[in-house]
């Protein structure tokens, strides 16, 4: 396996819909930047990823379309980043401190391949 590819992990961020004031939102946003900045400061950020708007639809068997991903999945996927780490354990260590976790969310850590 190619070394460059083996060492990339995707962090998937899930978080329930929050009802925050603009200040609260700004505060959370700052915490996110501090957390991503911390990973970047360690030279371990491979890609800043894509951010997803909350609105969305889910398409399922039989052409069933449900509004928003909320119905089935309690925690909505808000975006992802790609990090560099030697092992899955190192990647999990990097994921610690993610501000989404403190507001009821989770980080899913997955090995990436092109």
């Amino acid at each position: 396996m190619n070394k460059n590819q083996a060492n990339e992990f995707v962090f998937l961020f899930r978080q329930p819909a929050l009802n925050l004031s603009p200040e609260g939102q700004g505060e959370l946003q700052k915490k996110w930047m501090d957390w991503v900045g911390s990973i970047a400061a360690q030279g371990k950020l491979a890609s800043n990823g894509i951010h997803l708007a909350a609105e969305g639809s889910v398409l399922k068997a039989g052409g069933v379309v449900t509004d928003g991903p909320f119905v089935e999945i309690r925690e909505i996927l808000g975006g992802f980043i790609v990090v560099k780490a030697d092992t899955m354990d190192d990647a999990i260590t990097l994921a610690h401190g993610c501000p989404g976790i403190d507001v009821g969310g989770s980080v899913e850590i997955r090995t990436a391949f092109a």
Partner: protein
Amino acid sequence: MEQHQAALKHLFKQEFTKMVAVISKLYGLQHIEIAEDIVTETFLVATETWEHKGIPLNPAAWLYTVAKQKTLQHFRRNKTYTEKVIPRLNLDQEEHEEMAELNFSYRNIKDSQLQMLFAVCTPLIASEAQIGLALRILCGFGIDEIAEAFLSNKETINKRLFRAKEKLRNERIQLELPPEGEISRRLDNVLHIVYLLFSEGYYSKTQNEILRKDFCIEALRLGLMLTEYDKTNLPKTNALIALMCFHASRFNARQIGEEAPVLYEQQDVTLWDQELIHQGIHFLNLSAQGNEITSYHLEARIAYWHSLKQDTREKWENILQLYNQLLLINYSPMVALNRTYALYKANGQHAALIEAEKLKLEHNHFYYLLLGELYKTIDEAKAKSNYENAKALAKTQTERQGIQKKIDQLG
């Protein structure tokens, strides 16, 4: 007489770059050494003549006239050149007929210098060689001055310049602007070199303060030159100029006599140059046009916040966020360390310590300095051992002495 000498030196430095650019423009960049010789001879004549007859009313015009004569003589006198050099000139037919006539108009000087800036900053030459070449050809510094700035000797600098010029010849670099569609991309390299030039002055190892300031001023001048042309007057150009203005504003505050650079927190803010800070804000505003956010934008904004005297949490929080963004664009150990320092000032030692321990920059003495600083009021033993690590890794005696002082100040 001292002062007279200094004024002459300043004039010569300024006119050196103009005349070399114009002569090289006419005879091709491959003959840049001939251009340098002609200009040097011109200065010799000027020194001798002016000593007896006094400085003329328009010294630049006087120099241009002599340079024209010297150029003509030079090419007529040297039969070898007529046979071997003239055949290599890049002349249009019209230019050819004007050969005897060097054009020292304001416009042609400016154009030639801008083209020289792009030629010297071609990505085909390694940036190390470009710095020396830029200092000599674009800024007019003497070999002795460049050697002093690099803590080197004239011979080494001469060799380095020789190789850089050989590279210009071998790569057949032309004295011209890049095609229009490539200017913005090529400009990135030019801005990079200008910034390196500035840093060479700002962080130079030499104790010669005047020389170091001159480097910074020359870098600023080259940056401002780029604003005179629409195609190169882009937001990123303005961002770089803003950055250099903010840095330069602290030049005096950073120095106490011949001592080591004063740490930011210990600087005497009354020594900050408010005029340069205002200039910086002006160019920072200009840089905000357009969508591109370069590292110069982020660094200039960081420098702007540093120019505010009050040490508020808001200031450090803003600096922290800007460093976070800078890391997303471009990781470097120094940015990672500065980001952690900002975190310390914004969120306190404990938060910063956790982050600092993760960086693991084990070959960097600034890293141990930062750790020492963070442990200072938490764990003196750990502070001491980190300072000791820093001292062991420090590269100069001055640095080691400064760190020893910190150790002595502990408990």
